[in-house]
């Protein structure tokens, strides 16, 4: 399997990482190499094998329904690159 340049751009868009035009060819080469490397898996017959969902054979642990957290907006906001009062602020989102 190999990718074309439009796929590289589409994937970069999905991942929200700006990619300069001159980087696309290099990225394509790297992705192709990795995909060629993992290609080996396709020779294996995995019919009827359950995909792993967790390496530990235990059930999920559940939490009781109690308010034990929150009520500290400052702790949540103190690292914000931009804020307005107790809101995070981003460039306007157009709906």
């Amino acid at each position, binding site marked *: 399997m190999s990718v074309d340049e439009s796929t590289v751009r589409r994937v970069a868009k999905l991942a929200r990482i700006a990619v300069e035009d001159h980087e696309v060819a290099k990225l394509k080469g790297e992705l192709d190499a990795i995909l060629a490397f993992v290609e080996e898996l396709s020779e294996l017959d995995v019919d009827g094998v359950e995909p792993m969902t967790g390496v530990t054979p235990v*059930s999920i642990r559940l*939490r009781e329904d109690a308010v034990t957290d929150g009520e500290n907006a400052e702790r949540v906001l103190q690292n914000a690159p931009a804020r307005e009062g*107790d809101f995070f602020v981003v*460039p306007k989102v157009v*709906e």
Partner: protein
Amino acid sequence: MNAPSRVPASSKLIPGATGDWEVVIGMEIHAQVTSEAKLFSGSSTGFGAPPNSHVSLVDAAMPGMLPVLNHECVRQAIRSGLAINAQINLVSTFDRKNYFYPDLPQGYQISQYKSPIVGEGEVTVDLGEGESIVVGVERIHLEQDAGKSIHDQDPKLSFVDLNRSGVALMEIVSKPDLRSSEEAKAYVTKLRTILRYIGACDGDMDKGNLRADVNVSVRKPGAPLGTRCEIKNVNSIRFIGQAIEIEARRQIEILEDGGTIDQETRLFDPSKGETRSMRSKEEAHDYRYFPDPDLLPLKIAQAEVDELRAALPELPDAKKTRFIADYGVTPYDAMVLTLERESADFFEAVAKHGDPKLAANWTINELFGRLNKQGLAIEASPVSAAQLGGLISLVSEGVISGKIAKDLFEILWTEGGDPRELVESRGLRQVTDVGAIEKVCDEVIAANPEKVAQAKAKPTLIGWFVGQVMKASGGKANPQAVNDLLKRKLEI
């Protein structure tokens, strides 16, 4: 997808220039799960808090923070599944739905994509006049709500509040079994009733605690399903109806003009009375679902399911059937009485005191009517079930007339008090003493000789005499006794 088999009544078809059209509707309802804390964190679900106060480090997706599932939210989903007779999946998994949005801190929503906690179920929906339909539910899954972006505070900025981020939602996905806006509204109403009965969702649509994505397509009756459009986030039952009507008409117009429908997401604008495409936001959606590696598969013991089933309250359908059988109320009254669990409980408490039909009548027409007018919930009713029951028994016993009962109700509503004591202290007791009533009748007859003469020719005038007597007696005379007496005295 197979075309569902239900053939709609022709009255539900929409006439077009090229003949009748059938509208096919399926819904995804997002219902906020009633819980103290969020789905995967210990912060509060409370409404209306200052911005970013009900937010834990988990909700804000700080580095290294991990989700831990809230047991109560799981229970609520199971209860909801049981209430619609659905399959409960003893093993389910949580998946990540990946996309970027400022109010989605993790960059993904934890949802259940492949294996939801609840499988297929059904909801019986009453449409009035004895008609009811069964709407299939495809699945119910648990997922996180997003935060809120506020766009109107600044011309260049959006403000982000994460208070809702991580609140538990149930997404209830129906099959495309609905055939009109009326059916769709009735379905949502019924689902809301069920969820409120079991306490799994408060159904408060004003707060966005219940909102619907509505899938609408149209076709000629019997034809294969048409291309559907999804109308996102409609947040009132009235709007759901309007959105469907408007969208169906839009699609019919396009098709009749020889066009085709684009499968897309649309937004309903109630102020403009239109739906419009959200295509700008659409761009290459690819959610890259995969099992959340922070969460192991959820395994539920059958014993827990059984326990929750045993603890379920009587559900609206069962209650309605019982009301009809045990109280002899009409199916319509039974439906109205069972719309809310609290109303049904109220009615039953009233009905203990006397004639159940009278109780139904008073509960629905007087009490609900008055509560509605004043925008009060049943819990806030100034007249208690015991008071209304007292009033009913006074009427049943013939102690007061219907007319007086209304006055008494007014007193109970505004001043309160014990109905029986009020009747005594305010002299409201109905006069059944024939002698006393006869005296008033005689007075009225004596004072109105012309009417007496007319009544001989036109016996219906007796009503006028009854009214006069009742008025003169301050409403306390027994109307039946008055009627009998007047008939005799007027010789009609």
